[in-house]
């Protein structure tokens, strides 16, 4: 059902696989705050024009114009304001907001008229808007604070500058940027370039961590500590880039020293850093009510995208919560999430249709995260295959070494099949999952009749179920 409302006149926001905002990482865009129950109302007296690119199925002549969209979720990033419904996401870039102080204003909260809390947003491209906060003043003020800060900071411009200069093969930092069109050539030039890079990195680190920040061109006031943290946030991206570079150099050096084995560690480190590149550290403060949902989406993205930590590692599609917790928190580095939050977030995954869900095993109540398409019987069959294979081998060995007592007891000697079964630890190795999970898989296979058990003092072994 096509609606013709302010939302559709805004450009479309791309989302990740799990429905998170796809932030422009090359532009170091950072998510600042998210709030829900927002109404977006256009103050334009005439219907807003439908942008040519979005003219999918809306015909302004036939579809009635509605000047408002209700129940939106709004996310403010360093670059834009994103409005989301359950099904679609649109954004307004900060550069389209009036640059002077009138751009965003608080209004509302009156006694009789104009009671709801609003932000009056003046855009160059789409006229005036009201963002009405149904949840009250607190949310409005929080959003307004972030929004006006983002507008003042004008990060998108800086990012644009740095990205263009980065194309020239440099890590620019404003006016420290130097040209490489020097006359020096050969080794001299390389050395100089290295020296320059070193200096810039040093300066950047200083800028980011403390003192330098105050003298920085962003006019950060000296005593405002929170601003320093913001600076750190901003610079964090570039810092990682520098770390990358160091690692790369390190690796190169190692390789030059012709010791191939050592290089492996550094490669792994590089990979890790790349894998862990979290774009935005999601916090309770920025996400508000949506925290757990966003967390769920982010974890889902994290587990799907990273080669190393993929939930499909070893072709299983199942993970213990301990693993999820450790991997995810390690990727966050700081600002970790609590086990309770993880549990809550994972609990929402099924409803959000993220392709994975929380599962509790029947008897042991062990909780795991598994892909929705995950099938226990696939695992069971894998186990059976392994058991059969193993017993075949053992039987071959055994034919030649049957004891006399055995012969006497059975009245026959050769061709006897040997049953060896499988322990949880072995299963863990075969299925490439943790022993806890392997045990659960064995029990589940037993429940569904694929396996049966033998309990001895040595422990429990599982066998192909020959009874059924």
């Amino acid at each position, binding site marked *: 059902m096509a609606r013709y409302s302010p939302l559709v006149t805004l450009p479309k926001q791309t989302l990740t696989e799990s429905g998170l905002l796809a932030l422009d990482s090359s532009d170091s865009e950072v998510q600042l705050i998210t709030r829900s129950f927002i109404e977006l109302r256009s103050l334009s007296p005439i219907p807003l024009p439908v942008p040519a690119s979005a003219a999918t199925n809306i015909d302004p002549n036939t579809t009635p114009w509605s000047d408002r969209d209700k129940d939106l979720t709004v996310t403010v990033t360093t670059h834009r304001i994103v409005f989301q419904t359950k099904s679609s996401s649109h954004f307004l870039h900060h550069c389209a907001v009036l640059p002077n102080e009138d751009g965003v204003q608080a209004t509302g909260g009156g006694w009789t008229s104009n009671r709801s809390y609003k932000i009056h947003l003046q855009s160059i491209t789409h006229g005036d808007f009201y963002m009405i906060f149904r949840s009250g003043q607190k949310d409005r003020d929080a959003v307004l604070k972030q929004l006006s800060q983002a507008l003042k900071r004008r990060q998108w411009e800086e990012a644009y500058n740095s990205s263009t200069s980065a194309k020239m093969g440099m890590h620019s930092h404003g006016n420290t940027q130097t040209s490489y069109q020097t006359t020096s050539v050969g080794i001299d030039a390389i050395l100089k370039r290295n020296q320059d890079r070193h200096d810039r990195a040093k300066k950047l680190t200083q800028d980011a961590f403390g003192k330098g920040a105050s003298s920085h061109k962003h006019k950060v006031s000296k005593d405002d500590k929170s601003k320093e943290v913001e600076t750190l946030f901003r610079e964090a991206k570039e810092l990682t880039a520098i770390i990358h570079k160091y690692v790369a150099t390190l690796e190169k050096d190692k390789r030059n020293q012709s010791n191939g084995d050592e290089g492996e560690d550094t490669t792994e480190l590089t990979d890790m850093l790349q894998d862990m590149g979290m774009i935005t550290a999601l916090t309770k403060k920025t996400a508000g009510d949506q925290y757990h949902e966003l967390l769920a989406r982010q974890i889902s993205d994290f587990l799907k995208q990273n080669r190393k930590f993929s939930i499909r590692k070893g072709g299983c599609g199942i993970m213990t919560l301990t693993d999820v917790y450790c991997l995810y928190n390690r990727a966050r580095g700081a600002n970790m999430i609590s086990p309770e939050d993880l549990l809550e977030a994972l609990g929402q995954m099924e409803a959000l249709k993220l392709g994975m869900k929380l599962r509790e095993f029947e008897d042991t109540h062990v909780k795991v995260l598994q892909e929705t398409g995950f099938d226990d019987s696939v695992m069971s069959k894998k186990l059976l295959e392994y058991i059969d294979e193993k017993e075949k081998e053992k039987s071959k060995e055994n034919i030649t070494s049957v004891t006399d007592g055995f012969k006497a007891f059975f009245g026959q000697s050769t061709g006897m*099949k040997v049953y060896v079964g499988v322990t949880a630890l072995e299963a863990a190795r075969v299925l490439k999952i943790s022993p806890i999970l392997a045990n659960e898989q064995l029990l589940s296979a037993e429940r569904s009749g694929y396996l049966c058990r033998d309990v001895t003092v040595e422990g429990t072994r599982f066998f192909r179920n020959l009874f059924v």
Partner: protein
Amino acid sequence: MSSTFQFPEFYSFPPFFTVQPNITTREKQMALWRELILSYHTSKKIKTLVVHDCPLWKNSAIRRELSHDDVKTVIADFVKSGHGEWEDDTHTRCRILWRKPEQLASDIYTWAETNGYINNVCTVYELHSGEDVDGMSFDGCDEELLRRALAILEDQGKCTMFKGETSSEDGIKFF
């Protein structure tokens, strides 16, 4: 008498010696145990199973044996199925009913018919140890069990019993 008993293949299957937690699996397992106990005792012509002294519980070839509790479970299931009876209240000796009395009764009557005992008389002793019963299901059978089978036949009007000088000389007349 057959001295070597051919053990079924699952007797060397270790899980056979652990009572299975899965109900469906356990039912099948118990059925196999019942079969094994019965066929072992019938083919070896053993009339009584002494619970603490039964070789079946242990398979030394694969170094596995039923635990004390599991033995109880298995034998209780066996008795419940009607193929065994406790000889005492302490549940240490179990009479193995090679055939259930009803089956035995019809076996005896078929034997009597084919061997010309209808309207003739034979003794209880002849029935379990006589020359004519070689290879029959009640050959060497427990006398108590045999009498129960005969009582069933009597109820059906297929024979009458009369007292002899000793209990094994009790006579049966088939109709």
